[in-house]
C-alpha cells in the first residue's frame, strides 16, 4: 500500500469517526434542531468555500459571483423534484450538471479577462442569473420557489461533502491541478511551458460552479424554499470571506473558514448589522495584517503533525 492511499484511508477513517460522533449526538438529541440546522449549513458552506477555493485559490482567478451558481443548483434541483417528480439523487446530479454547464458557458468568454475585470464580470453574471430567475414565473419569480420537500439530511449532505472534498484534494494533486497552480503563480510562464491556460482556467471554473450547484440543490431541499434574495452578491461575499479567512489556496483553510463563519453568523443571527460589520472588519484587518489568511496555502496533513511533534520533541531535548 503506498503512502498516498494510506493517508487517504486514515482521513476516511477520521471522517467516519466524525460522522458517527455527530450523528450519534443528533440521535441522542444532545444536538437540538437549531444546531443540527447549523451543521447542515456548515456542510453546505464547506462545499461552497472549497469549490470557490478551486477557482480563486488554486487557479488564481478572482471570481465573486459564486452565489449565481448556487442559485442555479437550488432552482434546477427543485424543478426536478417538485415539477418533474424525479427522485432526489437525479435532482442532485441535474443541479450539479446545470450549474457546471453554465459555469462552462460563462467561463469560456470571461476567463480571458484578468484580475479586477474578471471580478466585476463574474459579479455582474451572478446578478444577471439572479435577475433572470426573478423574472421567470415558472419558478415562482420574486416570491420564490415554494413547497420544496426536505430531502437533505445531515447524513447525505455530510457524505456528499466528503466525496467532493476528496475529489478536490485529488484534483489539486493531479496533473490538472498542478497546471492550475502554475497558472496562479505566473500565467505567462505557465503558457510558455506549454500549459493550455484557457483550458485549465475553464476546467477549474466549471468544476467550481458544478459543486456550487450541488450545494444549491442541498440548500433548497433543506430550507423548503429557494428565494432569489438568498443568492445576492452578499452571499457571494460570505463565501469569499470564508475562503480568504482560511487562506486562498488551502482546503483546510476553506473548511476552517466555513466552520468559523457559520458559527459566528449563527451567534449573531439576531443582529444582522453586527454580523456584516464583523465580517467586513475581519476582512479588512486580515488583509492589512495577514493577507495570506489563517493557513496561507498550507494544508493540515499527517506531515504537519509529524513536523509539529518533532519541533516539540526538539525543544524538550534542548532543555
Amino acid at each position, binding site marked *: 500500500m503506498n503512502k498516498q492511499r494510506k493517508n487517504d484511508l486514515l482521513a476516511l477513517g477520521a471522517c467516519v469517526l466524525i460522522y458517527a460522533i455527530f450523528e450519534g449526538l443528533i440521535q441522542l438529541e444532545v444536538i437540538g434542531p437549531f444546531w443540527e440546522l447549523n451543521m447542515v449549513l456548515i456542510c453546505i458552506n464547506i462545499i461552497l468555500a472549497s469549490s470557490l477555493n478551486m477557482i480563486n485559490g488554486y487557479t488564481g482567478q*478572482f471570481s*465573486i459571483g459564486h452565489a449565481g451558481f448556487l442559485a442555479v443548483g437550488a432552482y434546477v434541483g427543485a424543478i426536478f423534484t417538485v415539477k418533474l417528480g424525479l427522485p432526489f439523487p437525479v435532482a442532485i446530479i441535474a443541479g450539479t450538471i446545470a450549474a457546471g454547464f453554465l459555469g462552462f458557458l460563462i467561463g469560456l*468568454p*470571461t476567463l*480571458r*479577462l484578468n*484580475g*479586477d*475585470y474578471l*471580478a*466585476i*464580470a463574474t*459579479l*455582474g*453574471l451572478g*446578478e*444577471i442569473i439572479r*435577475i*433572470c430567475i*426573478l*423574472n421567470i414565473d415558472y419558478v415562482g419569480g420574486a416570491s420564490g420557489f415554494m413547497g420544496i420537500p426536505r430531502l437533505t439530511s445531515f447524513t447525505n449532505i455530510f457524505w456528499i461533502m466528503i466525496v467532493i472534498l476528496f475529489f478536490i484534494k485529488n484534483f489539486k494533486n493531479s496533473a490538472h491541478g498542478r497546471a492550475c497552480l502554475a497558472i496562479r503563480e505566473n500565467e*505567462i510562464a505557465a503558457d510558455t511551458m506549454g500549459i493550455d491556460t484557457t483550458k485549465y482556467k475553464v476546467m477549474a471554473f466549471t468544476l467550481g460552479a458544478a459543486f456550487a450547484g450541488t450545494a444549491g440543490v442541498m440548500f433548497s431541499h433543506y430550507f423548503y424554499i429557494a428565494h432569489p434574495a438568498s443568492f445576492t*452578491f452578499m452571499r457571494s*461575499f460570505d463565501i*469569499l470571506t470564508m475562503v*480568504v479567512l482560511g487562506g*486562498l489556496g488551502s482546503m483546510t483553510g476553506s473548511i476552517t473558514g466555513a466552520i468559523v463563519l457559520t458559527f459566528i453568523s449563527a451567534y449573531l443571527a439576531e443582529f444582522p*448589522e*453586527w454580523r*456584516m*460589520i464583523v*465580517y*467586513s*472588519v*475581519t*476582512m*479588512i484587518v486580515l*488583509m*492589512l495584517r495577514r*493577507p495570506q489568511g489563517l493557513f496561507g496555502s498550507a494544508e493540515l496533513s499527517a506531515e504537519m503533525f509529524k513536523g509539529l511533534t518533532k519541533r516539540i520533541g526538539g525543544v524538550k531535548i534542548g532543555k
Partner: protein
Amino acid sequence: MDMGSLLHQFIQQMINGISLGSIYALIALGYTMIYGIIKLINFAHGDIYMVGAYLGFIATTYLGFGFFGAIIFAMVGAGLAGIIIERVAYRPMRNAPRIAILITAIGVSFFLEYTMMLIASPQPRTFPAIFEATVYHLGPLVVNSQQILILVSALVLMVALTYIVNKTKAGMAMRAVSFDADAAQLMGINVDKTISLTFALGSALAAAGGVLVGIYYNSIDPLMGMMPGMKAFIAAVLGGIGIIPGAMAGGLILGVVEALVSGFISSTFRDAASFAILILILLYKPTGLLGKNVREKV
C-alpha cells in the same frame, strides 16, 4: 402603438435617461479618477455616495440648510470620509497584491453600509423636498424641474472638475501621478497628498450625486449605494477606465440605455441590461469606448 407615440415615448425616455445618466456620470468620475491614480476598483465608492445622501439629509433636516448648503456640506463630509478611508484601509496596502486590495475595498463597502444601518436604521428615510417640483410640458413631453436641476448641477460639477484636472497645479500633479507615480515622486510631487486629494475630489462628486438623487427620489436608505455604485463602475469601464471624459460619456450612455430598456421592455431587466453591457464591453473592447490599446510588456 403608432409611430408618433413611439417617437414621443422614445424622446421622453431619453430625457429620463439623461438625468439618471448624469448621476451615474458623477459617481463614475470618482471611480475613474481613483482607478487612474492607484489602479484600485474602489468598491466602497457607491457607499460614499450613500454617505453623501445621508449627510445631505442631516444638513437639510436637522441643520436647516438649503440646497447649496446641503450639497456643500455633503461634499466636504464625504471628501473627508474618502481621505480617511484611503489613509486607513488603502494606503498600507499600496504594494500588496491586487486581489488583497480588492478584498479590502469590498470590506470597506460592507462596513460603510452596515455601520450606516446600525446608526440610521435600515428603514428608508424621506428626503425633505427642498425644491418645489414643477412639471413643464413641452408639447407631449414632460420635464421635471428636478431633472433640470440634476442635469445643471452635474454639468457644473463636471466643468469644475475638468478645470481642476487640466488647469491647476494640483490637477497637473494628479495627472503626473497617474501617468507614473515613481517619476512624479522624483519630480518633487507629494504622491500621498495627491492621492488623498483624488479621493477627496472623487468622494465629493459622489456625495453630490447622492444629494441630487435624494432630492429626485425623496427617499434614501443604507443600501442605496450598491446598485448605482456598480452601475457607475460599468459606466467608467464603458467609457474607458481612467479617462475622465470617458466616465461622463459612459454614464450618460448607460443612463439612456437603462431608461430605454425600462421604457420599452421591462423595468425588471434594467439592471441585467447594464451588466450585459459591461460583459460585452469587457469582451470586445476592454479598454472602453475612449480607451487606447496598450500592449502589456513582459
